[in-house]
C-alpha cells in the first residue's frame, strides 16, 4: 500500500492517474496514524513552501517512524523541497530535514518560474531512474530549487544547476512532475512502486 499525503497543496488527480498507469492505486491517509500500514509514502505538492506547515509534528513523527521501518518516501516538486532543511521561500518553516541543504529562489537571469521541459543530467547510479536515458526531459514548474548535495543523482540547469532528482537508501525526490513527464515519468513512478514492494 502506498500513501499519498493530501495536505491541501494542489490537486492530486494527476498524481493518482500517473500511479494508476504505473500499476498502483494510492490511498490517502486521513491521520498520521493511517501511515502505519504503508509500504511507501508520497509527499506531492505545488505552490508556496508555507503550505508544508500542514505537515505538522505528528505527520513528521509518523513519517520518521515509517522510514525507520524501511518504508520508502517520495517527494514530488514541493514535496522534494520539503525533504530538505528548509526553503528561502518561507524561513519560518522547517523542512523534514532528511537531506542536508536548502532550497533557494532561482536567479532572475532567465524567466522565473521555470516552466516547461528541461533535461536531466544523470550524475550517479539511481534506482528511481532505472531505465531512464541520460538527457531525458521532464516537465518542471517551480521558482525555488534545491542545493546540489551528494544525494543529487540528477541535475538540471535553468540559469544555475540545481538538484532535479535526489535519492538515498529510502528517500527519493524529484523537482519536476513525473506524472506529467511522458513515458519516462511513468517509468520513474513504476520504479518507485517496485522499490516499495521490496522491503530492503
Amino acid at each position, binding site marked *: 500500500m502506498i500513501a499519498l499525503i493530501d495536505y491541501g497543496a494542489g490537486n492530486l488527480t*494527476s498524481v493518482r492517474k500517473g500511479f494508476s498507469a504505473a500499476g498502483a492505486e494510492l490511498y490517502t491517509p486521513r491521520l498520521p496514524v493511517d501511515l502505519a500500514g504503508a509500504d511507501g509514502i508520497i509527499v506531492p505538492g505545488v505552490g508556496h513552501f508555507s503550505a508544508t506547515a500542514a505537515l505538522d509534528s505528528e505527520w513528521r513523527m509518523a513519517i520518521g517512524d515509517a522510514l525507520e521501518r524501511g518504508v520508502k518516501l517520495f517527494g514530488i516538486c514541493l514535496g522534494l523541497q520539503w525533504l530538505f532543511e528548509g526553503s528561502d521561500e518561507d524561513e519560518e518553516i522547517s523542512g523534514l530535514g532528511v537531506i542536508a541543504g536548502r532550497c533557494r529562489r532561482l536567479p532572475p537571469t532567465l524567466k522565473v518560474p521555470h*516552466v516547461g521541459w528541461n533535461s536531466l543530467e544523470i550524475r550517479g547510479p539511481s534506482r528511481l531512474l532505472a531505465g531512464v536515458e541520460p538527457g531525458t526531459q521532464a516537465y518542471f*514548474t517551480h521558482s525555488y530549487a534545491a542545493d546540489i548535495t551528494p544525494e543529487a543523482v540528477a541535475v538540471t540547469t535553468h540559469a544555475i544547476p540545481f538538484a532535479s532528482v535526489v535519492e538515498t537508501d529510502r528517500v527519493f525526490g524529484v523537482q519536476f512532475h513525473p506524472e506529467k513527464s511522458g513515458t519516462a515519468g511513468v517509468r520513474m513512478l513504476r520504479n518507485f512502486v517496485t522499490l516499495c514492494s521490496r522491503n530492503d
Partner: protein
Amino acid sequence: MLSKRLIACLDVRNGCVVKGVQFEGLRNAGDPAALARRYNVEGIDELVILDVTATLESRQALAETIRAVSRELFIPLAVGGGIRSLDDAEAAIDAGADKVSINSAALGYPELITRLAARYGSQAIVVAIDAKRADGRFDVYSRSGSTVTARQAVEWAREAESRGAGEILLTSIDRDGTREGFDCELNAAVSSAVSIPVIASGGAGTFQHFLDVFTAGKADAALAASVFHYSEHAVSELKQFLASSDIPVRLQNT
C-alpha cells in the same frame, strides 16, 4: 536548457473536435482522445482543449473528454472556454486538467485570477489574452474577440501576473486563422514585460513562423491547431527543423 514548447490546441464542441483532421489510421477523426494520443506519439509537449461552445451540454461532454485524455496521456493538459467561476475550474481540474485558461471572466472579474491561484497554485492558472492592433496599441478583446475592452495587452499581462497567473496565452486576433505568421511584435512586447511564460498563438502557417516567434517574438511556447493537421508528422518534423536552427526542443517522443 529549457525547451521551447509546442502546444496543440483541440477545439471541441459537444465532445468532438471541431476542425476536421485527416490522419491516416485515425479511426474517429472527431475523437479528441484519439487526436491527443496521436499528437502525444508525435512528441507534442502540451495540450490545450478549448470548448468553443461552452454550453451546459458541451461542458458535460468536456469533462468526459478531459477524463479520457488525462487517463492515458502524461503531459500537461490545459482546458479553456467558458471557465467563469471557481466551480467551473474545479470541474475541469477534478476531471484531470492540470491548468485552466481564463479569458473574459478574468477581464470582468480580475479577482478570479487571485482566487484560483490561491486554491490551485499559479502553475494551474493560464490567463488568455486576445489582442488586436489599433493605432500602435494592442487592445485587449473579450468574449471571443467580439468586444473591445479598455485594457492594453502589456498592462493587462502585467496585472494578470501580479494577481497570480502562471502563464499568459497570447492570441493575435489580427493573425488568427490567417497562417501569415505569429505577431512577433505583440509577443515580444508582452514577453519582455512579464517574467511568467508567454504562449504565442494565432497565425501559425509554416515552420519558419515558429522559429520567428521563438526568436524575434521571445515566446516561451507556441500554440497551433490546424498547422499540426497538415501532415501526420508535422510535430516531429517541426521539432527537427527547430533543433537544426538551434532552438532547444524536446526531441524524444515520450
